[in-house]
């Protein structure tokens, strides 16, 4: 089959690789119709996530048709149209039973590597480095999907591929980001980053009843989409305006009631502090550039929550711990527990409350994946979300 492979930092290539096979009795094989490039893939692409190998198949957002099932698969059948959640989860361990599927205790066969880096291991993830399992990803014609009866969600005909594939990651992720803010009446929520994940965090904060959502980025077209499509009430271009001052002014001096970091480890920060982080990151003295996170912590209202859905990989510097303790600020974070959000969010799509395909700006062939990475990473051509079609 054809698959998009990582071939070193800033280099991906569609290659011919062996077809996947059933390896465990509860696996299924999915013939992929639609798959996406995610901001998380950019961290791999740009070489910030350790334990990648040449030839690793990328991609964790995909959907398609079940074409083969293992002998212990009970519910799923060949021919079913499914979307696959990006964390791999068994459904039977303690964490899975508690609904924390991105922490599945059984799905990462390389858990010792993750544990060496992070203390303990999270779940395995499709196409996301060897420390998260060494699973082939979904930017391919076919994928092997473990735990077929627990992960993949069967889709009704009424939802399109473009809508459904957003359930694999970014709609649930944005939603979880908003949910972690415990939004109550009158709350103002600020969202750093108007990438696809940020757009869903904005839209979800609205769905969850936020009074006002303030969106922060530097790309005018992303800020415009945040206002026009995701429903942000106010946008701030951080290159033109001091974010903290603006937020203070907009909230009567209190600060936002919830701050969502939808930027992650490649935050761009103007000025000296930005240079400092960039230099340290390039020397691997800190893995991550936490510009947006620092700002979110300093900005949030006393006693409220900073929700971190942007991905960080290792260590950061100049963490404003004092602000946290002295102001009773809570930080919540996580890779999204996608499994628990897929059905309720599918219901919302079916009820017409939201059409998640609004983020898609580019559709191209799987063969053109490298072009997709290029324009997405450079934010060229007003790119927000790239969807790849296999031609199946």
């Amino acid at each position, binding site marked *: 089959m054809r*698959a998009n*492979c990582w071939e*070193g*930092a800033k280099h991906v290539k569609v290659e011919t*690789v*062996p*077809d*996947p*096979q*059933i*390896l*465990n*009795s*509860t696996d299924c094989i999915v013939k992929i119709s639609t798959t996406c490039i995610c901001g998380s893939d950019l961290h791999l692409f740009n*070489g910030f996530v*350790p*334990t*990648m*190998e*040449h*030839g*690793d*198949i990328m991609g964790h957002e995909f959907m398609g048709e079940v074409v083969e099932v293992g002998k*212990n698969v009970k519910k799923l059948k060949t021919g079913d149209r499914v979307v696959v959640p990006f964390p791999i989860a*068994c459904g*039977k*361990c*303690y964490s899975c*039973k508690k609904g924390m599927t991105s922490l599945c*205790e*059984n*799905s990462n*066969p*390389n*858990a*010792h*590597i993750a*544990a*060496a*880096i992070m203390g303990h291991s999270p779940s*395995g993830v499709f*196409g996301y480095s*060897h*420390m998260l*399992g*060494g*699973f*082939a*990803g979904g930017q391919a014609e076919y994928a*092997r999907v*473990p735990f077929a009866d627990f992960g993949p969600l069967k889709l009704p005909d009424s939802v399109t591929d473009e809508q459904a594939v957003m359930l694999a990651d970014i709609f649930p992720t944005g939603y979880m980001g908003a949910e972690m803010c415990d939004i109550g009446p009158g709350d103002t929520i600020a969202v750093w980053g108007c990438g696809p994940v940020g757009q869903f965090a904005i839209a979800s904060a609205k769905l969850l009843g936020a009074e006002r959502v303030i969106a922060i980025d530097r790309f005018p077209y992303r800020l415009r989409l945040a206002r026009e499509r995701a429903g942000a009430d106010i946008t701030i271009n951080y290159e033109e305006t001091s974010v903290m001052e603006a937020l203070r002014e907009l909230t009567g001096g209190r600060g936002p009631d919830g701050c969502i970091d939808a930027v992650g480890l490649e935050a761009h920060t103007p000025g000296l502090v930005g240079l400092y982080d960039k*230099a*340290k990151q*390039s*020397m*691997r*003295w800190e893995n991550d550039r936490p510009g947006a996170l620092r700002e979110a912590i300093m900005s949030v209202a006393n006693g409220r929550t900073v929700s971190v859905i942007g991905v960080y990989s290792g260590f950061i510097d100049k963490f404003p711990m004092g602000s946290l303790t002295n102001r009773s600020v809570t930080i919540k974070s996580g890779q999204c527990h996608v499994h628990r959000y897929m059905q309720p969010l599918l219901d919302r799509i079916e009820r017409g409350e939201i059409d998640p395909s609004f983020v898609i700006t580019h559709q191209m062939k799987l063969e053109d994946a490298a072009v997709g990475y290029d324009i997405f990473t450079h934010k060229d051509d007003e790119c927000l979300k790239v969807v790849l079609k296999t031609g199946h």
Partner: protein
Amino acid sequence: MATQQAPNGTRHNGSDGATHRPMTNAPRSWKGAPEHYSETPDWKDGTTKFLGWFSIGLGLAEIFAPRQVAKLVGISDEDEYVGTLRQFGVREIAAGLGILTRPKPTYWLWSRVGGDAIDLAWLTRRLRDSEEDNDSTKLLAAITAVLGVTALDIIQGTKLTSEKLPSTGHDEGSFQVGKGDDGTVRLEAQVTVGASPAECYEFWKNLENLPRVVGHLESVRTLGEGRSHWKAKAPAGLSVEWDAEVIEDRPNEYIAWHALEHEQVDNLGSVTFVPAPGDRGTEIHLEMEYHPRGGAIGARIANLFKKIPQGALMMDLRRFKQLIELGEVVQSDATASRKMPHPAQPNATNELKSELRAQ
């Protein structure tokens, strides 16, 4: 390669000379493990060596002639700065020695970059501090010079790093709990399994099940009356086998065994089952200790066990957890392969591990 006599007298043929074959199928410690950086002095090219000697030279100057250095770079030679420069000197010498003595001095090269950053920050602060009696032209020149060296450091560091991404952050060192001077290797790991102590004990009470999860064991055969014959996985040319007996067996709580007295390898092991709080199941504590009994073969055996990374036993227990909670061991495209390391893409059928091919 010569045929080796195994400790218990069985003969094994070291035919393919595969001394570098990983000794266990269990996921190995990542690329940072020492064997990947075996003696290949050629990692260092001229520029790298230059940076090493440059570090030492600069370090010596900073320690023994800090005032001259201060003048040279255009800062006032106040005592405060002299002290700082001396500290910088110590750092430079450490980095220089590291670069020149390590076969693959990736870490030390990056530490040079780090050092450069400190220098730059410090010099820049001097530059901006207008109240100080500093010579800004010289300072600017010094900053430019450091920037130049930083660029070299980054280029060299990147060159070495790009060969193999630093992954776990260790590029040497051990993952084991304890390694005595006498060659004793102690491994331990814990896992919590969602089943009762009785269900977990059921698996371990038959020691023949151990190789199904413990990656460094090839087989365990029970001989009756609490005795068993153990065989550890070893590279071609070396086989390690011993007889052991159960010394304590408290159903659903604890099993302990040790190697018989006359054996060349002294092995001590135990597994403890503790009910976990709430509805969390059972905590399993596995401990294994290997203690070679001397002699040249003993030393080779000791070496063998020393290479078992601590992470391996943790994965062994996680495999046990998978067997109990899921009924099978979970594979990824990378771990299912006989060829290691294997990229995260499907295997051609003949590259799959035999137990998977057999399905």
